[in-house]
């Protein structure tokens, strides 16, 4: 008997395919948060557009397999997935951003991701299946040459070790939080976890930091622990100071953000000159400085 399955050989070949694809991508950045509901996907989608405005060739992988949102936010929901000469073609949004999401493989927007396999014991293999799905999205999607590929990770930290193994030259993580004490407690844990895995932290984004009155422009803190606005040189807020990471920016709460996301257009396209729009551009500039 010989090892007909050659499982090690097959896994090695899979990794070679990932490496070949990722070699054509200059910067790979994960957008993550310790907790759900902090607006991570909104930040990822608007950062994608901010960099596209800066003339970067941008792709975004929606790695949140059980709660994909990026396709909807970038106006490409419901489009079919297409097979080209060199793998699956990412869907290109009207704004020129290449998008891949498991949403494209589902029959409609109501259908959740359900995997085939032995019933009642999916906890045994679900994690491996989800990891393999991310690996296939990297190796089998024809991303082409990109300046930036953003990974919109699911809430929590569980996806990062897998991503760091698949993409060893990950430039770093953009950590999204809101200024609530609970979210900040969790983000501290997440940052410790990221550091343990040797992945650089590019910086912290504080979402929903304040509310800006549309009538008078007065800014009101939404949470007790809102941080001081970063200085023009990239000053730090409390949590960023404690954790020794740059505060990339603070995004004020603005109902237009969710209105635009629902329409499938990132806020920046329609409201670039609002405080939130400016904050997204500032965050992109700080990330760009980090790249340099």
């Amino acid at each position: 008997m010989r090892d007909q399955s050659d499982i090690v050989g097959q896994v090695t070949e899979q990794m070679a395919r990932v490496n070949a694809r990722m070699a054509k991508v200059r910067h790979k950045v994960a957008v993550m948060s310790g907790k759900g509901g902090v607006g991570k996907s909104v930040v990822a989608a608007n950062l994608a557009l901010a960099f596209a405005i800066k003339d970067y060739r941008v792709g975004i992988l929606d790695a949140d397999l059980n709660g994909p949102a990026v396709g909807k936010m970038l106006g490409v929901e419901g489009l079919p997935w297409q097979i080209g000469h060199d793998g699956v073609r990412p869907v290109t949004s009207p704004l020129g951003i290449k998008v891949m999401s498991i949403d494209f493989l589902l029959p409609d927007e109501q259908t959740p991701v359900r995997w085939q396999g032995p019933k009642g014991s999916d906890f045994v293999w679900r994690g491996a299946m989800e990891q393999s799905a991310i690996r296939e999205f990297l190796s089998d999607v024809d991303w082409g040459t990109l300046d930036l590929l953003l990974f919109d990770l699911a809430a929590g930290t569980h996806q990062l070790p897998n991503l760091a193994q698949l993409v060893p030259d990950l430039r770093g993580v953009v950590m999204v939080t809101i200024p609530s004490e609970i979210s900040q407690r969790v983000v501290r844990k997440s940052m410790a976890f990221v550091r343990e895995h040797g992945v650089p932290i590019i910086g912290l984004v504080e979402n929903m930091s304040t509310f800006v009155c549309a009538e008078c422009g007065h800014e009101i803190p939404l949470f007790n622990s809102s941080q001081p606005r970063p200085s023009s040189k990239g000053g730090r807020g409390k949590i960023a100071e404690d954790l020794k990471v740059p505060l990339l920016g603070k995004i004020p709460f603005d109902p237009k953000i969710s209105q635009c996301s629902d329409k499938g257009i990132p806020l920046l396209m329609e409201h670039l000159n609002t405080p939130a729009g400016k904050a997204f551009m500032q965050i992109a500039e700080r990330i760009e400085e980090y790249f340099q």
Partner: protein
Amino acid sequence: MKYLCEQCDTVMNFIGALGPDEGYAREGSMRVTFACPRCEWRISMLTNAQETQLVKSLGVTLGGRKAPASPLELVHTSLVEKSEPVLHPAVAGNSPSPDHPLKASITWTEEAETRLKNVPPMLVKMVRKVVENYAIENGYSVIDVEVIDKAKNKIGMT
């Protein structure tokens, strides 16, 4: 996982794995064989259904791959409910290629150029590209205010 040959007090070597439909390994099991390097005593482990699924979830083909994997093969074959892919047109894409022949011949009317002045300077290049892509996709060689409005409507902008 490792096995010990008690008789020789030696760690057994992995010999190979057979898929769930081969040899003795049927009914969803995978047969994994080890042998003692000293006495050549062999032992085969039969996995249970969950363990077999765990290995399959790595995206490997038990029993060996006989043909190259198709794109997103594991994801697509493993989803219970799924959509089917379509073939991408050989040349055109969701957005036209930068060297599309129509691109060079596109002109903007004066009125359309004036409209661009209302766009924040940082966005002008992107808006120009979006509108031109729309024009190419829809066969316009002259971009006027009407084409701009149609492009805006298409991407949902007000």
